[in-house]
């Protein structure tokens, strides 16, 4: 990787300070271009251009764009939490089930309260958020304190949350959702045709970006994923941080659950079996490394739109939509391949950069981590 383009002598002598705060001669533009999120954005643009040329009337219009964005909104909220989790080199398979479970509990709470008012809706939202939080804490404690690998913990909670949701509902979807919630949130628009759900997703994504990239919480998220031991040695409370990250993913899953109720008016218990994998694929396509330490929420959002646009475009241009799965699978593998190549060239010496998938076995010290 050609990161070192500046003159080494200059940077090393204190008497001649290096140019521009030591950017190593690499401009912002150069660094952006090298980002996987940016490269994947170009791929997305190409896809959009191709479909727009093939179907200028049916694909490239506001209504269609609006429906693509709307369909991606809830996934984007899940993607924010998943990006944090994967940056720590963890994984959360439970998001779809937690979403369903939280939706069920939220719906039950709203039925118990009764009525069709905003008050009822807010009770439902609060209950769903709290339910998601509880699952997230459950995951986080088991991963950070009991040292059970994230893959196993969240696979377990995936089954538990889904099973409990079915037990509570006896397998029958709840369809009683306050009208105000469906009208104002689910079908609501602001400034004309902008879906409320999308606005909510944009706000969550924006907050996620700020927190991940500009706050100490975000910095610790990268540090834990990059080298847990080094974070521990400088006093980062790694266990507590991991719990918070999984709790965040849980809360956002709970939020997604209640937003789904608003959008579709049903708990759709059986409808989220692919959600976890779709979101993980988006996160990875967007350049977040499964090995931790690297990733952006912007990339995740771009990564969500690739499958969404492909699906939509294939239908419109009359290609069997099953091709979407094939195409997304190929993009996913390509993205991980690019990440591997990147890390192989970046990992010079330093066992700390050696691949060690956390969700295989959570490492408590570099000595113990097998791989």
């Amino acid at each position, binding site marked *: 990787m050609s*990161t*070192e383009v500046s003159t080494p002598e200059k940077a*090393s002598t204190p008497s001649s300070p290096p140019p521009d705060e030591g950017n*190593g001669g690499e401009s912002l533009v150069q660094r952006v271009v090298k980002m996987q999120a940016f490269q994947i954005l170009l791929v997305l643009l190409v896809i959009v251009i191709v479909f727009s040329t093939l179907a200028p009337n049916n694909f490239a219009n506001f209504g269609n764009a609006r429906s693509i964005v709307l369909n991606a909104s809830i996934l984007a909220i899940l993607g924010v939490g998943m990006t944090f989790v994967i940056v720590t080199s963890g994984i959360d398979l439970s998001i779809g089930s937690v979403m369903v479970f939280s939706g069920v509990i939220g719906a039950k709470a709203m039925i118990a309260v009764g009525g069709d008012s905003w008050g009822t809706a807010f009770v439902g939202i609060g209950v769903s958020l709290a339910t998601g939080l509880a699952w997230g804490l459950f995951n986080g404690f088991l991963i950070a304190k009991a040292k059970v690998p994230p893959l196993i913990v969240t696979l377990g909670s995936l089954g538990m949350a889904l099973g409990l949701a079915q037990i509570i509902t006896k397998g029958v979807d709840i369809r009683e959702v306050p009208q105000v919630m469906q009208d104002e949130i689910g079908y609501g628009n602001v400034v004309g045709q902008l879906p409320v759900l999308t606005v909510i997703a944009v706000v969550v994504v924006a907050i996620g970006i700020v927190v991940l990239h500009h706050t100490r919480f975000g910095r610790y998220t990268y540090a834990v994923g990059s080298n847990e031991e080094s974070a521990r*040695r*400088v006093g980062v409370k790694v266990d507590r941080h991991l719990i918070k990250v999984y709790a965040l993913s849980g809360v956002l899953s709970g939020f997604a659950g209640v937003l789904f109720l608003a959008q579709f008016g049903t708990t759709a218990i059986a409808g989220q079996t692919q959600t976890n994998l779709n979101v993980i694929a988006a996160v990875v396509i967007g350049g977040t490394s499964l090995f931790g330490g690297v990733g952006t929420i912007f990339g995740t959002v771009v990564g969500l739109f690739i499958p969404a646009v492909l699906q939509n475009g294939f239908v419109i241009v009359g290609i069997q939509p099953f091709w979407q799965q094939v195409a997304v699978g190929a993009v996913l593998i390509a993205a991980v391949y690019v990440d591997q190549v990147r890390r192989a060239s970046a990992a*010079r010496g*330093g066992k*700390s950069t050696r691949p060690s998938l956390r969700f295989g076995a959570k490492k408590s010290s570099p000595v113990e981590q097998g791989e």
Partner: protein
Amino acid sequence: MTPVLEARGLTRKFGQVTALDGTDFDLEAGEVVALIGDNGAGKSTLVKALSGNLAVDSGEILFDGIRRDIDTPMTASSLGIETVYQDLALAPHLDPAQNMFLGRELMKPGVAGALGFMDNKAMRGQARQAFDRLGATVRSLVSPVGQMSGGQRQAIAIARAVHWASKVVFLDEPTAALGVRQTANVLDTIRRVRDQGVGVVFISHSMPHVIEVSDRVQVLRMGARVATYKTSETSMEELVGTMTGATGRTAA
């Protein structure tokens, strides 16, 4: 004078292996003590025990003459003890400034800081100064340290430790990966830090560097201190002999 840091009878076993076997150690403020010994003598283990990274089975640690349990790296840091580990312990995906301030981020003033926003500019500026003082070849303050050479990473780890240490710095083979000029820089840094009144513990297998920079030498063999020399009164031959067990004496 009371030593700034003293260990008495530290013992630590790893299963069958006795890494520390009732070893003593002492360090005065404002001196450089070289800690030498063969591979596996227990040097790194001793450093870990004294910097809050390893619990010992028995023995006691005195800081400024007072018994202390240095049981976490945070305790060590709060006492002004910093360590450059043999494996460096940097986060490879973070840049040099982020590594330097990891766990001790400078926050923005006021509400923004309370909300968790960091003052990246100030951190980068201070990091730049620290690297310049060390004469470290850190080409980019915004590239991940994982992409840098072993020597550059070592310089970053040293700059970080020196920046935060007010009482004691442990340097576990700090010059192992360094070029000639960078080694000279590190040895200069060690002297400068010592002249500021900080106690420096310097671990190295290079006897010329040990002789050049240290005030005293303590020799570990099989987990115990077998000798202490004044550097001015010893020789490379004597040090090597003591390390390998050919000769041995205990002097002050």
